[in-house]
């Protein structure tokens, strides 16, 4: 492990050796990876990443894997950072970028975290990969297990969108549909993990898993010419991605790879599941759990494990947290598609809708460089927009029939 020192408890600071463990033995706080930052600052230069593979693995030195460890590579990461001038105009902003993580191998950002977790799991000698999922993690775990010839068990809420079920089952995983909410599925998986001893990517491998999200920050900075954006808008489910993007930016500033300064970090949630946004607006220091009820199922985590951390990260950065109704989410998906040609899943609709609210409220300055993180593909949740998109005009196969529809359109 080139630069990894071990694990450290985020709550009490107690250090422990690298192991597939996510909880501090003393206080049950979450464990985080600890790196030799001085050595990284001394030995690693950002230019060397530019010669690396065109994937998230170009940042391998900053990920918790041994130099000689086999990594699972489906071609994840280094996704497009696209200037979005049409969307910017619609939002009343000037410098908007889309980080399009909808085009990863299984069509969501989850491939980043699962790539790291799977590689770590193989390194620890596991033969069975598992997860609790709202759908995106499910597909990613199933695909990575297939690639590494591991068995996999994927637990999902039974009411998940049909497309997400098919998108997972196709990889040949053992899919378990649980009659309950995601929070209940997660709880079940904690108990299953204690009994079966599998590599649950989001439970016992969580310290490794969550580090994969930092690559979203590294890529963004590199694609902006080793500069950080002034403001980022990130969807919140468990709160980990937002916190890890902030961590990645902080690391790069500490290493001197990007200019000093501050990036405001804002969070986006669905109104039907907005524990972090509600805490932000009420001034609470702690996030209280809610019962999720939203079309944005990939964000429907009522009891976010990293909610308190996300809340602190937002406040300390000078950002804000917003929430969008189901109608606004659908409109957000349509706005992004119709202005930028990018079809996002419901979580992307949440991000766009919340960016719109933040801009309208003056929480995003029109002159700021803003990056919106689009974390999942619209083909995963087509049912969300099917009722509102314009139907096809069905015609007879004759020129006259087509001209008749055009006459109507022109008139």
């Amino acid at each position: 492990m080139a630069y990894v020192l071990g694990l450290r408890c985020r709550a009490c600071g107690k250090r422990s050796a690298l192991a597939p463990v996510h909880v501090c033995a003393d206080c049950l706080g979450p464990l985080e990876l600890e790196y030799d930052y001085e050595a990284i600052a001394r030995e690693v230069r950002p230019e060397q990443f530019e010669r690396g593979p065109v994937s998230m693995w170009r940042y391998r030195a900053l990920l918790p894997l041994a130099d000689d460890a086999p990594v699972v590579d489906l071609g994840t990461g280094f996704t497009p950072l696209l200037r979005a001038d049409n969307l910017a105009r619609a939002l009343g902003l000037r410098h908007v970028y889309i980080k399009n993580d909808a085009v990863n191998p299984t069509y969501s950002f989850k491939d980043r975290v699962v790539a790291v977790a799977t590689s770590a799991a193989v390194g620890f000698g596991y033969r069975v990969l598992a997860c609790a999922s709202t759908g995106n993690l499910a597909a990613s775990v199933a695909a990575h297990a297939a690639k590494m010839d591991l068995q996999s068990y994927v637990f999902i809420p039974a009411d998940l969108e049909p497309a997400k079920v098919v998108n997972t089952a196709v990889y040949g995983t053992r899919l378990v549909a649980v009659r309950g909410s995601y929070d209940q599925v997660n709880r079940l998986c904690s108990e299953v993990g204690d009994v079966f001893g599998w590599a649950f990517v989001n439970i016992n491998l969580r310290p490794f898993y969550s580090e994969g999200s930092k690559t979203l920050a590294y890529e963004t900075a590199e694609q902006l010419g080793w500069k950080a954006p002034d403001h980022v808008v990130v969807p919140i489910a468990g709160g980990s991605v937002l916190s890890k993007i902030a961590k990645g930016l902080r690391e790069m500033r500490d290493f001197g790879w990007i200019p000093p300064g501050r990036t405001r970090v804002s969070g986006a949630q669905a109104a039907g599941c907005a524990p972090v946004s509600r805490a932000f607006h009420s001034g609470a220091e702690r996030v209280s759990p809610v019962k999720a009820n939203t079309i944005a199922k990939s964000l429907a985590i009522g009891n976010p494990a990293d909610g308190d951390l996300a809340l602190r990260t937002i406040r300390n950065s000078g950002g804000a947290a917003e929430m969008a109704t189901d109608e606004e989410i659908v409109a957000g998906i349509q706005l992004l598609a119709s202005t930028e040609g990018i079809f996002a899943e419901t979580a992307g609709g949440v991000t766009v809708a919340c960016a719109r609210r933040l801009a309208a409220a003056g929480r995003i300055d029109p002159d700021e460089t803003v990056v919106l993180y689009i974390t999942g593909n619209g083909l995963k949740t087509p049912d969300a927009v099917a009722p509102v998109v314009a139907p096809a005009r069905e015609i007879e196969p004759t020129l006259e029939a087509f001209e008749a529809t055009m006459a109507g359109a022109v008139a």
Partner: protein
Amino acid sequence: MAAGTEVVVRVPAPLRSLTGGQGELRTAPGTLRAVIAALDGSYPGLKARLCEEDGSLRAFVNVFVDNEDIRFLQGLDTDLGPGARVSILPAVAGG
């Protein structure tokens, strides 16, 4: 006590060093606060792992009673009747 008259408490793996490896404990009905105190009598140190010094539950500990998060019930004052099932779980990441 006869089966069904006790409270059943599931213990997560990280706490089993305190319970002699047992994953399931049984005790008399009462409030959650009383149940934790009773278990701490049998397995000293358990309460300190779950609660802050002021007695409140630690930030990263989730407790469920019959599948419901106690924050949707009465927290540590939640009454646990005969046969109630308690799960203690550290918070986990999501997605």
